[in-house]
């Protein structure tokens, strides 16, 4: 068992052998991965040391103090948050050692080919087909809202392998090569003006059987690992008071006395309190994780942040009055980073609308809280034992 002291000295050794000031960024990150200091709770040889997850904070603090480069989690969020835990849980040894290092270092960006035009909240209804052909699978279908597909090297993909089975049972989970000639990525412009996500057309894409994660037909269970990690991925980092979007609004309030009105003051204080309480909630979640008693508060965090970010950025546009009526730029770009708090108030307002849709809508998360946390009865269902091909679409 690795303790905090040991991790601290391993981190110092890494820093001594690869001084950040004189080491190439990617070389440093590779060395960090090889030292097991990438994600300390991962297995030895796969970037970790089998240490308690909570001890990552010790490593991160040492590295931050030394000014070491990070792997830019905003750019590779899907790889770190969703692909990696799924690869770890379901990949073969070859798959794990092939993919995890470049994923963590950021040399290879990942995207998530889940949603389809006909299957969003009801993801298990998806229709993209995977048909076996010798040692390969051949994929045909269309995916949508795929964040980062334009910069991704690999994708996690779910596709239907058995249309005769009920919808949850005929799905299989794959790793898809985004450079395959059958993959076509088209930008999908969003309400901010830029194209963060894409449509992805899959035509005769060939995936070797070795890139199938989990059993054939068991993809829904594998996907649960991905989705759970997607929803719980918040809450790790500690944020200071006014660290999130509320800080932007508070600063504008302090610097621009001429904009203040009594009505906006009340709403500002309401939101300030909500943001501070959300911060305490995140802190409490973090302490629960450290104490080894993770609570269901993770889903609360995502729901709460969506509501708060939308309300705060909405108030900011209002506060800015005439200025709030302007927008930075509408130029169509395909950004490499997702930036929730960046740019101007108008952008923040529009981008935050996605917070209650991406990664599961707020309505669907409320269903999950009601049924899994509170134990309320499930919705009546008429799709459970029907073959997927016989469902109405």
């Amino acid at each position, binding site marked *: 068992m690795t303790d905090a002291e040991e991790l601290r000295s391993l981190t110092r050794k890494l820093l001594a052998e690869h001084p950040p000031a004189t080491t190439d960024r990617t070389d440093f990150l590779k060395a960090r991965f090889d030292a097991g200091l990438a994600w300390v709770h991962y297995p030895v040889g796969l970037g970790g040391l089998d240490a308690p997850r909570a001890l990552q904070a010790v490593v991160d603090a040492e590295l931050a103090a030394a000014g070491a480069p990070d792997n830019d989690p905003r750019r590779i969020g899907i790889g770190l948050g969703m692909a990696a835990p799924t690869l770890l849980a379901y990949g073969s040894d070859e798959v794990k050692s092939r993919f995890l290092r470049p994923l963590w270092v950021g040399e290879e960006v990942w995207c998530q080919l889940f949603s389809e035009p006909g299957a969003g909240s009801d993801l298990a209804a998806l229709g993209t087909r995977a048909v076996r052909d010798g040692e390969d699978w051949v994929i045909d279908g269309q995916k949508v809202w795929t964040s980062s597909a334009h910069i991704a090297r690999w994708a996690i993909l779910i596709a239907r392998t058995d249309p005769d089975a009920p919808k949850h049972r005929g799905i299989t989970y794959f790793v898809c090569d985004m450079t395959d000639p059958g993959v076509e990525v088209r930008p999908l412009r969003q309400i901010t003006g830029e194209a963060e996500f894409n449509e992805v057309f899959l035509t005769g894409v060939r995936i070797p059987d070795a890139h199938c994660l989990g059993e054939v037909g068991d993809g829904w269970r594998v996907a649960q690992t991905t989705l759970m990690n997607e929803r719980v991925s918040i809450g790790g980092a500690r944020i200071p008071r006014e660290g999130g979007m509320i800080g932007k609004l508070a600063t504008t309030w302090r610097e621009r006395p001429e904009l203040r009105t009594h009505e906006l003051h009340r709403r500002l204080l309401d939101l300030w309190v909500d943001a501070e*309480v959300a911060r305490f909630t995140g802190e409490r979640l973090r302490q629960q994780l450290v104490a080894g008693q993770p609570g269901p508060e993770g889903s609360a965090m995502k729901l709460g942040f969506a509501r708060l970010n939308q309300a705060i950025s909405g108030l900011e546009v209002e506060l800015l009055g005439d200025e709030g009526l302007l927008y930075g730029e509408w130029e169509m770009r395909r950004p490499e980073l997702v930036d929730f708090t960046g740019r101007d108030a108008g952008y923040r307002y529009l981008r935050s609308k996605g917070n209650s849709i991406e990664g599961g809508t707020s309505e669907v998360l409320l269903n999950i809280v009601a049924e899994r946390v509170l134990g309320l009865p499930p919705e*009546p269902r008429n799709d459970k034992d029907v073959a997927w091909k016989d469902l109405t679409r």
Partner: protein
Amino acid sequence: MTEQSDLLYSETEDDLRATVRALLADRAGHQSLLDRIETDDPYVPGLWTSLAGDIGAAGLLVPEKLGGLGASHREAAVVLEELGRAVTPLPYLTSAVVATETLLALAGEGGGPAAELLAELASGRTVAVLVVPLSTAPDQEPPIAPEVAGVADAVAADVLLVPRADGLYAVPAGEATVGPQTPLDLTRPLARVSTPPGGGIRLAEGDAARAAVRRGLLAGAGLLASEQLGLAEWCLEETVRHTRERHQFNRPVGSFQALKHRMAQLWLDVVGARAAARAAADALATGSPDAPLTVAVAQAYCSKVAVRAAEECVQLHGGIGMTWEHPAHLALKRAKSDQSALGSAGRHQDAIAALMDLPAPR
């Protein structure tokens, strides 16, 4: 939030919770409360002695050398969560928190009238209340008048702590006139208190007296958040239980999504209330310089959550929620009165605005 801020519950706190919960379930079930609330004395006989004396809950905030258990606001907060859950009528917040904390500011290392009185309070033998209207906020100067209305739990008090122009006095209840008023919250009696001029013993004067009162009210406001949390939690649990069992349209009403979402939303608010109430209790326990801000945040948030939870509880119970026999109204009345107690949400927000430099328009 300071580095050490601990928002979880310790094992000792969990044990204390279990003890208090068992006592209240045994002796102060809702039926027994409903039977007593319309009498002059809503307090369950003997319950105070059991909680304050036998369990020692009245002395949690008092250091051992002053006659208490030397625990902290974190443990007292857990007791209040349970009292809030059960909507128990007991002078805990008023005597074991507000009056006790006021006296702690004056007790020094021991000796003197404040320390003596504190030891009595810690043992549970004596109940004392601060003679201010229940609505007084921590940053508010209490009214100085011969008669003060809206004093909570004065009917149960043996000693009255009376702020006067020249200091803070301890007046035996026998020397005062305590006229019960009809409260909205039948589980926390209010009274009009008049004390004879010049009576009692002076505990402190000037700034020391004012600071002691402020400290008492700040602790009261901070820990009231835990009472509100416990109350909200009970309301949510009862509502979930009821809507799972109650059938309409050939389905449990709790399977209707409109209701599920309302309860899920309430759960989110309760999760926030727990984090906020814990942060306030911890800030008070550690004497953090952040305490005034954290208390204001907890009050501004938890008072709203408690009222919403109680209102949802009444609504989602349908007709039965409107009846006198069902305990939902006990919670509603307590939550609504707690909303004004120790400063309204708006007052606490003003305190935040001042502390965080978020000024109102000129």
